[in-house]
């Protein structure tokens, strides 16, 4: 592992990592890379986020969909756990709440495969520091 030896080092590293993530987000590496984040704070895990994450990883693989599934922290929608964020290439991310296996299956079949939204979307209701 490389050490960060100076601020210039860190800045360079940031550019590279950001570029890497942007490429991933814009789907330039692969035309159809789907990104999924599962909210895995204690509340999410208690509500059953772990089996959903495993289900997504297994099922996306089985169904031949090119996707990365990662964990993240609390999205803030504790009333609707488990929550996941799905980002299709070239599109804004969409957050789904109350995701059980049935819902996860529906999300894969309808949203990920065909771009059809399904019930249970949670609209973003906050500003990020980038805009404020």
């Amino acid at each position, binding site marked *: *592992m*490389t*050490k*960060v*030896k*100076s*601020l210039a*080092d*860190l*800045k360079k*590293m*940031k550019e590279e*990592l*950001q570029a*890497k*993530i942007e490429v991933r987000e814009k789907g330039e590496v692969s035309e159809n890379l789907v990104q999924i*984040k599962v*909210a895995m*704070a*204690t*509340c999410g*895990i208690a509500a059953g986020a772990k089996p959903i994450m495993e289900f997504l990883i297994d099922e996306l693989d089985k169904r031949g969909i090119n996707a990365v599934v*990662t*964990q*993240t*922290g*609390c*999205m*803030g*929608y*504790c*009333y*609707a756990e488990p929550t996941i*964020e799905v980002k299709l290439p070239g599109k804004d991310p969409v957050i789904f*709440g109350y995701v059980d296996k049935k819902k996860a299956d529906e999300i894969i079949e309808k949203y990920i495969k065909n771009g*059809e*939204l*399904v*019930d*249970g*979307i*949670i*609209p*973003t*209701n*906050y*500003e*990020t*520091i980038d*805009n*404020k």
Partner: protein
Amino acid sequence: MHILVCGGTGCRASSSDAIVEKFKSELAANNLENDVQVIMTGCFGFCEKGPIVKVLPDNTFYTQVKPEDAAEIVKEHVIKGRKVNRLLYLDPAKKEHVSDSKHMGFYRKQIRIALRNCGFINPENIDEYIARDGYQAIGKVLTEFDPQQTIDIIKKSGLRGRGGGGFPTGLKWEIASKNKADQKYVVCNADEGDPGAFMDRSVLEGDPHSVLEAMSICGYCIGASKGLIYIRAEYPLAIKRLKVAIAQAREYGLLGNDIMGTGFSFDVELRYGAGAFVCGEETALIHSMEGLRGEPTNKPPFPAESGYMGKPTNVNNVETFANVCPIILKGADWYSSIGTEKSKGTKVFALAGKINNVGLIEVPMGITLREVIFEIGGGIKNGKKFKAVQTGGPSGGCLTEKHLDIPIDFDNLIAAGSMMGSGGMIVMDEDDCMVSVAKFYLDFTVEESCGKCAPCRIGNKRLYELLDKITKGEGTMDDLDRLRNLSKVIKDTALCGLGQTSPNPVLSTLDNFYDEYLAHVQDKKCPAGKCKALMKYVIDPEACVGCTACARNCPVNAISGERKKPHSINTAICIKCGACIEKCKFDAISIK
């Protein structure tokens, strides 16, 4: 094309189900059901103007939509591509219709600063943190500012301690920096103990590096090379993610010796707490870290003079640290542009209780309780009536309807008889008994009192007993005076913050819900129907058909009566479990 209809509880109450149906039938009538999908979503957080309908991909945002508007939206917008102007949101300032929801950020009442990375990055991957400006703030501080300049930025930003006290953070750092010593410490207080609060846990679980980075900035400012995070062992996932984060930061050389070649060294270790509430008080916390009993001591000396191991120590809360890096990167002016005159920035709240959108929110200071509860929180569960909101945990108080429109900040909440606290917000409805709520908090304080000073150890116990007596219907008018007097004595004489604030739930409920106390004392009634001792189950002989369902299900055989004849309850035996009410199909049993 998609039509999103808000299915939040507020909008649902104003017929969003019917709106969905109407859209579907209108689309079908125009043979568009396969091209346009109608989707029910979660709450948009804009219940005031609900029901909300959003059309994608053009992000058109319609407000106060009625089922009969569906036909027009389909005909005009979907088919002809013309927005229905009369349903667009009217910007109250500019008197203009706003069509694209991307330009109506003002309706979004939340701003995420402390939570900026929570739910975005993978907390166990330092690369994702670095890609979102991670460790840039410490880099900037080390290369561009000296410690005093950095302290001045924090001071100018107006950041105040988020653990509850609201002490200016920059000033705290300055005091610690001026005390000379061979070793100093930066301590992060992650001993979150208020019932119903989970802000700090969420930050640590979602963005552990932001706290580590801010601690090292603080270390640079005060001249400390060691950081300690005091975290309760009840937070295993937060501990695990912190450990991963510390290991990764060390591996990258972002913690440890000679950070980024600047000669500055800083490292962080964890200290576990056993979950005692009093250990959130900084002197008790420090004693607990030293291996001593978790008991507070008199201030002065303040930790900034003599803290951990007798050395100058700066203690800040998790959320306070989580605000530091954005302040450094975006500037003090940016931060102080958010919030009220004396309380800058944002506050994270954990919304809990009888509220629809239970969750973690971050709002600018100065927002009203009404906006938090009825907009972001989506209102009260099951359409019940709002009664009170408890802020500040066991140290805070209950605020009522009349407080809903005051801007939330440190000073206003104290003036209203509560406090900001660490950010727990528990919403109560008409079914909650305020005497029982006060009793619940006193029960907690009695349990958590360390026992060192008499006012807290003995006084709180007496307060609890008085409240218990009142909830049993044995209270007298003298008891109400005694409650108030004793509360004042405890406030004035207790040693630490825990004792000094523990009577607040009693005082605020006495002030705001005196009639409820009177009902318990004079009429021997609990208006909310919560106090078991004051309840009486009765069967209405007119409505009872003698089906025997209640008698068969009574666990203590308190119900008697002949088949097909009205039954009755022997109140001397009845344990008020409510099993009979559940079984009665004729609504013949009620609580009096």
